[in-house]
């Protein structure tokens, strides 16, 4: 009975964390969009007249920093909540009652929420809690999360294209808006998975996967 109670406690913890991570990421998404919008507004004219703006590195940096910040918030909250579960009477019973293996053997199933399976596969299994670093946990780059190349279509401009002129300015302004809209749509797609299959990899799933991976490592270490 003790092992089932402990598994239920971990399951409730899992549900709480997954839901809170989703809320957190949804709440933080406007900040990411604002940063991406700022990037589009600051993009040089040269980037707005080519078919594929060379902004990948800048986008990577913004997305990676935002993702890492959100991951750290999620991990911090999850650790505190898990600590409460691990220190409970239920876990004491498991520890002292020779039921450690029952709980540990259940963990792959506890962590294996099908919908984030692709993201779990992208986050390395951790041997021990101590080995966790932000770099081993997640690497967010435009390529690693299938952030598409930012294509906004080439525009044929005359020789004065880069020199200015009202008509050209209007064109550049429209292309800037198109770039901003494109970045916003890509943020929705790659952060929340909007427009993708429910089980496709996305940043939200990766943060959830990383939290579950760390929880598994913490519980394994606690049970040794």
């Amino acid at each position, binding site marked *: 009975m003790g092992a089932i109670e402990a598994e239920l406690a971990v399951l409730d913890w899992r549900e709480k964390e997954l839901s809170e991570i989703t809320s957190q990421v949804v709440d933080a998404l406007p900040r990411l969009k604002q940063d991406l919008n700022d990037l589009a507004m600051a993009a040089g004219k040269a980037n707005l007249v080519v078919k594929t703006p060379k902004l990948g590195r800048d986008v990577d940096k913004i997305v990676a920093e935002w993702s890492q910040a959100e991951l750290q918030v999620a991990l911090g909250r999850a650790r505190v909540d898990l600590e409460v579960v691990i220190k409970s009477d239920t876990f004491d019973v498991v520890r002292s009652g020779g039921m450690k293996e029952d709980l540990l053997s259940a963990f792959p199933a506890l962590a294996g929420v099908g919908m*984030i399976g692709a993201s779990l596969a992208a986050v390395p299994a951790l041997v021990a809690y101590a080995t966790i670093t932000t770099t081993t946990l997640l690497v967010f780059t435009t390529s690693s999360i299938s952030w598409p190349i930012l294509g906004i279509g080439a525009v044929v401009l005359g020789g004065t294209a880069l020199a200015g002129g009202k008509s050209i300015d209007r064109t550049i302004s429209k292309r800037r808006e198109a770039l901003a809209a494109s970045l916003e749509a890509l943020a929705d797609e790659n952060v929340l998975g909007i427009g993708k299959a429910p089980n496709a990899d996305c940043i939200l799933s990766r943060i959830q996967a990383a939290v579950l991976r760390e929880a598994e490592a913490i519980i394994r270490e606690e049970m040794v």
Partner: protein
Amino acid sequence: MYLRALPPELIDGVGSGAFKVAGSIIKNTSNGQIVGHLQETGAMDIVLKGATGVATGNPLAMADTAAGVGTLVQNEQIKARLTEVQSSLSLVQGMQVANLAVAGLGIGVSIAGFALMLKKMKGIETQIRDIDSKIEAVTDERRNDELQTVMSDIRNDLTIVDTLPSRKNKATAAETAQRELARSAGRLEGVFRRDVEAMERNHATREGIERLWNVSSMIRLCHEAGQRALFTIDDVKLAAEYSERQAESLLRLAEGVSADALTRSYAAAGGSADDFVARRADILPASAALHKALTGSVTAITAQADLARRLDESGAKGSLYLKELDEETREPLLFLPATAE
């Protein structure tokens, strides 16, 4: 007599935090030791009627008028109002009450009579047909034919269990019915898993989530009926083993489905982040209720296993235990001490 009135000091102890309730189990908070079990009785029905003002008279009957997720919301309302009715019922406050409409409050051995179980079964069948008719494209993944077959089998087995008292060879009939009900529960678990997997590949729908709730209700119904059959023939030892296995099996099922994942699967079908937020808020209560129903069932059935184990160890007869529950007309909750005094 196996059961007794709830000691006032126990009620006070739960209120003060000295004791805590998990499923039907009351534990001493300081050392984690089991003090005893709560057991709902036939009088619970009367209290529920009074607490809710529902004229149907039995929680099972309520399911016929309420949709699956709606029933869960109703469960919460009933639970909240129960605490106002009688001091002993304050013990159920905070308890995860799973599938109230199927199995009473799920505190101890089920008090639901089989005529009402059959009625509930019919309600679930109607509801599943209604849900499926709303789903435009019924894919192979849904395997509705299989579900209809399983429901038909369960109905037959419930009828057998219902007629146990008048059968010559009760033991064989009860064991066979229980075995078949367990098999049906296993097939329903397969349906449940396939539905969840389909929602991971394609976006979840409200109807799909309600269907999951109904399938989980039927699994619980199979368990309650099977357990009661074993109590009827005094095989409480087997009832304990059966409950342990069922709790384990339901736990695996609960692990495989995440309320957040279902919610996200539904929410991401919108075209923008704003749609995502609105759709998430819309479906979250239903997904959370499903999770709560599953884990609540695991807790309740785990406690039932412990209760049956204790009855077996004390040499109690399951049939007499059931008789006590059925005949009690005053106290909605009784107490089974952990140790004989």
